């Protein structure tokens, strides 16, 4: 365990896995993001917080290819894969599926599972970009395809065990309880073998106990899969105890950044959350 921690520290000093420089996003005349800078280093849990409508989800959409930022640079530094390059891969405007293939997998604020597929199949979809059997393989089913298919099933089941859903493997995902759906989304994202996990409000709608379990799970996943995590979250208790660093966003700008302690003492952050103090 101690070894592990030093590893993590060493990694922290290295290159970032995701670096966002000066990113702006305009929707017509509306400036949703304005010159955002953000960095995620290997093995880190970074949280992005801010009041509703601050632009957090827009930011997520910008770095996962759903939107193309109007301005600025989003660069990823994948550890492996054919797209690995020393100076990183520029991903603004890249197709969403290629961003995922690169190793940045996300979950959604309003859960987006495939409702009439089973939990296991949902995770198996995540394996899609890491497997390659085509039409001919599907029809003729040679040994290689059969092996690949069985590996997909086994890997997916293993991931379900990791998030504690193995008993619900053959259940339609629409029938799962809310908390389980959230965890299933994380398992599905993990199936794509990401180096960076992007969680959009994973604890939304969860009770305190579920939130605590989720927190433990994120910590476990980070250790086990050696992933970095960037999360958007409103639950302050979870954010403060889980993240290594926090970025605070308001009106599309980053207004503060630092460790949880630094951020929570920042007067600008307090003002953003609690409003201006009239007596001052």
């Amino acid at each position, binding site marked *: 365990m101690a070894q592990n921690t030093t590893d993590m520290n060493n990694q922290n000093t290295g290159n970032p896995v995701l670096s966002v420089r000066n990113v702006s996003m305009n929707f017509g005349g509306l400036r949703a993001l304005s010159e955002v800078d953000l960095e995620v280093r290997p093995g880190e849990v970074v949280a992005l917080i801010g009041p509703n409508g601050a632009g957090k989800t827009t930011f997520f959409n910008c770095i996962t290819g759903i939107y193309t930022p109007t301005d600025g640079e989003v660069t990823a530094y994948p550890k492996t894969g054919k797209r690995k390059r020393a100076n990183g891969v520029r991903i603004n405007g890249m197709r969403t*599926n290629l961003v995922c293939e690169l190793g940045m997998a996300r979950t959604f604020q309003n859960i987006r599972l495939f409702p009439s597929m089973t939990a296991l199949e949902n995770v198996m979809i995540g394996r899609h970009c890491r497997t390659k059997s085509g039409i001919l393989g599907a029809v003729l089913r040679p040994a290689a395809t059969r092996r690949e298919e069985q590996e997909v099933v086994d*890997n997916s089941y293993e991931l379900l065990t990791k998030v504690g859903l193995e008993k619900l493997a053959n259940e339609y995902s629409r029938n799962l309880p809310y908390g389980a759906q959230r965890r299933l989304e994380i398992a599905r994202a993990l199936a794509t073998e990401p180096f960076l996990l992007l969680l959009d409000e994973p604890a939304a709608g969860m009770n305190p106990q579920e939130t605590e379990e989720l927190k433990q799970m994120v910590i476990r996943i980070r250790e086990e899969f050696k992933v970095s995590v960037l999360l958007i979250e409103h639950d302050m208790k979870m954010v403060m105890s889980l993240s290594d660093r926090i970025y605070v966003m308001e009106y599309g700008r980053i207004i503060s950044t630092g460790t949880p302690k630094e951020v929570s003492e920042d007067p600008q952050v307090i003002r953003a959350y609690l409003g201006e103090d009239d007596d001052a």
Partner: protein
Amino acid sequence: MKDTLMRYVVKLVRQALVASIWLSFLTLPIMVIRVDTIEQTVTWRWMHLAYMAVGSFVLALAWYAMMDRRDRGQAKKDLETVERVSALSQFLSDPRFAKPLMAFGFLVAAAFPWFFSLYQTNILVSAMIYVVLGLGLNITVGLAGLLDLGYVAFYAVGAYTYALLNHHFHLGFWAVLPLGAVLGAFFGILLGFPVLRLRGDYLAIVTLGFGQIIRLVLENWGDFSYGPSGISNIDRPGLFGINYSVEQATTYIYYIMLALVILTIFVTARLKDSRIGRAWLALREDEIACQAMGIDNTRAKLMAFALGATLAGLMGVVFAAKTTFINPASFTFMESAMILAIVVLGGMGSVLGVILGAFMLMLLPEYLRAFSEYRMLIFGATMVLIMVFRPEGLVRAKRKVYKINVEAAG
């Protein structure tokens, strides 16, 4: 218990009574009053009112009872989280019964032309063509969720490919069959590219337009397609240069179709349970999540369009060879709608459902000919009834149950 039953019956009877009184009142002028303008008399046929009232009361009672049963069944199903498997589907999925059943079905199909008339065989060939068309459209609509209302265009492409090549270059059936498939796929991709960004209603409208364009081109470009008069004297499939009668030709085409149907079932069933089939399902369920999970939407969509169109092109060639005459009137929107109805009534995504749907929709109007003018009425009523009582189609698409290697997963 007895009390609730009583109340339930009273409720039903009251509903049916209201419906019957209302309907009797509505039909009063046409059913009861008869005005004779020559004799200047008015006859009141009160017996008709009684017939109407009794008839509508009985029908309404049956209707409400069935609706009620359905609603209660639905409510029960909503409460259950575990999917209920009906006894029939359990029976069908048990390999001990399924294998002999399939073998039996195959034997019946293989022996069919020897025991039944030319007429019956011909009908069955048509039905089988629609089985393959239905399975092809099932890939696009049922699996990938891309509503294609112009599917018949690819069917026309296949048919005209054979007709024109045969007419001008005397190319045989077997040479054109793969060519028809390839051209079908080509047109599938041609349609697929511009509609990649569209979904739902918009996709339906564009594909509808595409189907019309192909038909209009065939109708109006006389130099190329011989216009509405069509192309006749198309060769039947060749059999090592042997000459044979019309009856033998039908039997021959029957066996060709049987082989193609089996091939199609095999291919679509395997595709459905493959990595690509899963990607299609994900695409149908949630396009954004699907792409965010690393599936190339463009590829998956084009593949679905192309594969569906391939089968339609293939069937077009068979159709031209079977009828020996084609014209644009065979490829109207009505055909597209029919094939779509096969997929939807049969059960979207279910291979067995689509097969049953095709047989039902093709054979029912044929065998209802005895009822002459009422046949389309009965046909329509059947379709409405299926949609009301089995909204997911005759056979619900079943998800594959995966075998998990616990040791490997442990």
